[in-house]
């Protein structure tokens, strides 16, 4: 599904090297968690995968279903099945959430040569998906993320994910700013999308989210590299001991 090979990335403007050789392989239906201290390169990885400006890939490649996606525009990556749930969802005044969703769904269908959804079919689908995420009609009518609470913004990200049905979902600190109930709701939304084929990369600081979204593999990232990979127990270890022990262990190795 996703294969990252020796990915080296620096900031275009400052020239600062952020990723120093990331290797990661995510198979179909798998859930991988990436944990790590602040500034280790977790969010940069998600931005580079989704095609955000401002980063220069100096080495390495990213393959999705065998296709190198680094040459693709962000919209082409999305149409190919990549989805990034933003850490800080963007507010867009003047564009209703409904218009935003319909435009996105139909743009992707068009890019894939599929027929656009009719207004009625779209409405039916969005209502059904919104309901399970407790997103009411008012939230759909309001401009994208405008005046949404932290929890509403994150639920809205999951709604987009549910509507777009991507092959690969990257969740960038989706748990930040969520209370316990909201985290449960968001996790249920994510779990509902697990169908054995769709893959997930869950970026988080905390083990807590992983209680709800159970990962198959846990990676620890530090200073632009994945320094350790293990099973779900690795996340528990971090929760108990922090990153310091792990970092020291790797340095001494």
């Amino acid at each position, binding site marked *: 599904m996703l294969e990252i090979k020796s990915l080296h990335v620096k900031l275009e403007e400052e020239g600062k090297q952020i990723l120093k050789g990331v290797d990661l392989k995510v198979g179909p239906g798998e859930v991988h968690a990436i944990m790590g201290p602040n500034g280790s390169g977790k969010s940069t990885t998600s931005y580079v995968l*989704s*095609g*955000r*400006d401002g980063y220069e890939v100096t080495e390495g490649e990213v393959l999705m279903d065998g296709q190198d996606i680094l040459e693709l*525009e*962000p*919209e082409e*990556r*999305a*149409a190919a099945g990549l*989805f*990034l749930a*933003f850490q800080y*969802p*963007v*507010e*867009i*005044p*003047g*564009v209703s959430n409904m*218009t*935003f969703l319909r*435009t*996105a769904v139909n*743009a*992707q269908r068009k*890019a894939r040569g599929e027929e656009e959804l009719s207004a009625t079919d779209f409405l039916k689908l969005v209502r059904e998906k919104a309901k399970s995420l407790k997103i009411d009609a008012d939230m759909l009518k309001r*401009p994208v993320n405008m005046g949404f609470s932290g929890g509403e913004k994150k639920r809205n990200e999951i709604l*987009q994910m549910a509507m*777009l049905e991507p092959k690969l979902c990257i969740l960038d600190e989706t748990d930040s700013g969520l209370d316990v109930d909201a985290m449960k709701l968001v996790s249920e939304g994510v779990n509902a999308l697990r169908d054995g084929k769709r893959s997930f990369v869950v970026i988080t600081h905390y083990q807590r989210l992983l209680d709800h979204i159970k990962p198959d593999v846990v990676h620890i990232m530090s200073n632009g590299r994945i320094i350790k990979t293990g099973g779900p127990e690795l996340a528990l270890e971090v929760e108990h001991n922090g990153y310091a022990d792990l970092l020291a262990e790797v340095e001494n190795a």
Partner: protein
Amino acid sequence: MKRAELKQRKLDTTATRVDAMSLPTGAPWAEALRQDALTRLLAMGLPQGRDEYWRWTRPDSLIAETPTPAEVFVAEEAPVFSGIDRLKLVFVDGVFDAEASDALEGENLEIMRLSDALSADIHWAKDAYGVQEKKAQDPVERPLATLNTAFATDGVVIRATGKVAKPVSLVYLHQSESSDAVLHHVVRVEEGADLTVLENGPAAARFNKVMEVEVSDKAAFHHVRAQGRDHERRAVTHLFATVGQEASFKSFTMTANGVLTRNEVVIDIMGDDSIAHVAGAAMGDGDFHHDDTVFITHDAERCESRQVFKKVLRNGAKGIFQGKILVKPGAQKTDGYQISQGLLLDDDSQFLAKPELEIYADDVACSHGSTVGAIDDEALFYLRSRGVPAADATDLLTLAFLAEAIEEIENPEIAEDILHRLEGWLMRRRAAG
């Protein structure tokens, strides 16, 4: 050069300019009103580049003896408002075309050609023609409106006595490359009446238009206009309005291209508990200069005014906004809002704004803002990351930028029509690259 000398030179230029022109004939009272306007014009002089009020818009081509020729533009699609059930009045290069127009009648409606009204022995227009224009000369002179009062050759006089079901639609066709049109409309919306006036079309190579509107107590006036797409046309327009008690005035203007446009709006809110909204969406590509100059006076209690102006500019287009809210002593509980924003689609374009508030009452809420910027990168990336191609995402964000102005149009059918035109403009720009 000394101030007095400059002023004298200005007056001499004005005298020379109008020397060859003759005032249209009419009833003695009408001729007196025109003569009064001419006298006032000769005393104030036509605008010049060094006038503060014309600092950002050069008036030369608007006051020149002959208009700069403008190629007649032929659009492929049907004109705006074509699908609206309306009372259509057509002017060709500034001359009323009775054949192409509907009959001048309607329920709760009195409507008459200006020249007929100004030729009648007795007509209510006697107390209205040029009256607001004259009053609006203080504190800022608006000589091109005075020129209009003196020399206007055509127009309509409209009186609404109740709810007028169909909008009165003024259609301005441009057929001659060197036409110079001067139109003057007088509108009175009587107590409790409701009238919608639509305007569209380029009108002429050069167009000078005045509309004076009196909105009586408990009356409502809606105005939506689309200024023609002819790229080379020039226009100066003045919209004057007085608003009575518990009354409503709403005006929206869409401008897509035109080498020079100056739209002045002057509103006096004179009765308590009233509202006055003025909005504009302008889109310019290339050699485009668009100026909105607005002056709203609050002279009553608990009134609300809004000024919402949005301009999308690219390829060296220029947008101007000069907007003022004046709150007179005693105009307590005034709620004034003013926003002017420029969206620059490249580095060559320019947006200049001069927002002003002048407040003499102590219990008021007035807010104003003015911004200029490019498409929001964050929003653009967010849309693209969801699969929306960059060009579509840019158009969506451009329409979103204009949305606040378009929302000022009350009638959904008309708003939809305007939105459709804006989308068309964006599509064409995209095709042009």
